[in-house]
């Protein structure tokens, strides 16, 4: 059983999952920040590989990827960081990346499994294109995370969730990451609708920025909540002051984790 399946095997478990762009603001500082989130009790991690053209992301994550690339965080650095994180903690690790990075990497899946990644989400790969990807994940014991969008029809959502072996990442609202800081009004209804279709754990991201949002998602039946841009904004604001960034991240993660207890 992979770590995400273990995490969600307790049906009452509510998971708070912070997102970090690997290598932002630098490879070493990135580890320090992620460590702070782990120490503050994060239930799992969603980690991004910086990509030159993150077309599903809003300005905050774009700038984050740019900082990481500028700081010299290439694919090898991401792998090294993942190893370090895995050596430090045993929590579930999901990756969020753009397909070209995986497509270009020799033996990518084998390598990710080896460094202790538990599941992978490819931002630009709908189910129509994902057969081979899913097979590779399964072959290497990696979990599959698929996106469910606000405009995904029911039958399609059911199929997507049946193929998401780790969890379904429910896109909270239309738009790119981090542009709006409020949850969509119909989110609770959508979560209920999706729950009726499948037992697949639902983890909500996009438009989630505070412990209040996390609470609302848990109340609505979401098994997990992801905060990305709000954390990245903290990093952006405190680029020159890593201690301050660690402090703010600790506070945010602690308040969100408490929500789920």
């Amino acid at each position: 059983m992979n770590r995400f399946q273990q995490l969600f095997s307790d049906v009452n478990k509510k998971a708070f999952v912070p997102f970090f762009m690997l290598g932002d603001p630098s490879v070493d500082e990135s580890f320090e920040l992620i460590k702070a989130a782990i120490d503050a009790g994060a239930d799992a991690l969603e980690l991004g590989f910086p990509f030159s053209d993150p077309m599903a992301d809003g300005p905050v994550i774009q700038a984050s990827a740019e900082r990481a690339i500028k700081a010299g965080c290439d694919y090898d650095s991401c792998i090294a960081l993942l190893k370090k994180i895995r050596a430090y903690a045993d929590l579930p690790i999901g990756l969020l990346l753009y397909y070209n990075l995986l497509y270009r990497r020799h033996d990518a899946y084998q390598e990710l499994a080896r460094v202790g990644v538990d599941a992978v989400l490819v931002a630009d790969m709908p189910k129509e294109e994902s057969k081979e990807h899913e097979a590779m994940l399964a072959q290497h014991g990696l979990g599959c995370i698929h996106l469910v969008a606000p405009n995904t029809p029911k039958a399609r959502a059911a199929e997507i969730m049946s193929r998401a072996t780790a969890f379904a990442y429910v896109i909270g609202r239309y738009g790119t990451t981090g542009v709006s800081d409020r949850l969509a009004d119909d989110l609770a209804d959508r979560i209920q609708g999706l729950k009726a279709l499948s037992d697949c754990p639902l983890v909500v991201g996009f438009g989630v920025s505070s412990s209040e949002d996390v609470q609302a998602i848990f109340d609505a039946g979401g098994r997990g909540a992801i905060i990305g841009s709000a954390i990245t904004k903290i990093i952006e604001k405190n680029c020159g002051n890593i201690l301050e960034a660690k402090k703010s991240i600790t506070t945010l993660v602690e308040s969100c984790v408490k929500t789920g207890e």
Partner: protein
Amino acid sequence: MLKKYFGDYGGMFVPETLVAPLKEVEQAFIAIQDDDVFQRELQDLLVNYAGRSTPLTHAKNLSKIAGCNIYLKREDLLHGGAHKTNNTLGQALLAKRMGKTRIIAETGAGQHGVATAMAGALLGIPVDVYMGSIDVARQAMNVERMKLFGATVHSVDSGSATLKDAINDALRDWVTNVENTYYCFGTAAGPYPFPSLVAYMQRVIGVEAREQILEMAGALPDAAFACVGGGSNAIGLFSGFLEDDTVQLFGAEAAGEGLSSHKHAATLLKGDLGVFHGMLSKFVQDADGQIAQTHSVSAGLDYPGIGPEHVLLQEKERVTYLGVTDEEALNAFELIAKQEGILAAFESCHAVALAMREAKRFSKDANLLINVSGRGDKDLESYVRLRGAV
């Protein structure tokens, strides 16, 4: 006319939110192919609004220099100043039929932005255009034209601030405004069904050119030349001749400051397979798969990707793709102006330069066909800046 894959290339690699709108475009595209009302309306616009058919010109002075017959397909004379209008009239009609109330577009040289803004003005649909800030500066005249047609132009500063980044931001807009917005994609690339849809709208170039050269020269051309950025004017021209085995096909890629310089946009010649902008195709990228910043004097060719059908045509060796440098393109810009009195776009001048270079391989009674995909008024300012006052 609806292919999801061209050999191994193409596909629909997009975030889940864009699947539904792309399927909506697919269904609408299937429906209009057999819809007489739509076809009549489009035909009427192409003829009576845009001025089709465009002429075929026997370029006698260029022919003398080339040592064989040069024919020019004059898409520069199409309303809007480039072949882009073929596509935007078709897609804007499609958007209207789908009940969309807003159109977005990306643009490099500004020609697709202008053509979309024009179609939006004509059909009464608001248009938002995304354009890299570098392109906004080097194609300032086209920005003014778009604004005059009522479009909102968004200058994009991220990444390389050119066409690729404009596409990124247009996609971001689309994910946000999926329900009421139609994305009028400018070239025969991107996610399915755009490569097929845009090729369908542009095939008129090849259909006309084939008829015209048969009538004028009494024979099929020995070779046909087009520039390749994303590949829409080229696929339009080539589609008329793909079944004619005797017609050699040439695509001119932007070699910028040289193919060995890293300052080029020669995707087919120097790029590698990858997945980006919704398609499995070739891209100029680094070993990790980070998309590279390209360079070309012509904004319309300054793109690190290429339509998937071109990758297949290259693989099948049906089309020969060769590089043309900035320098060669500028020389061709001067040549076609001085010899024929035609101001051709920097993009199209890549095709002119390639044809003039390859001409020596043909006998003196050979007929070479060049697609002059757009007019060069937009490039005059850049020309003066690069080469000094005329």
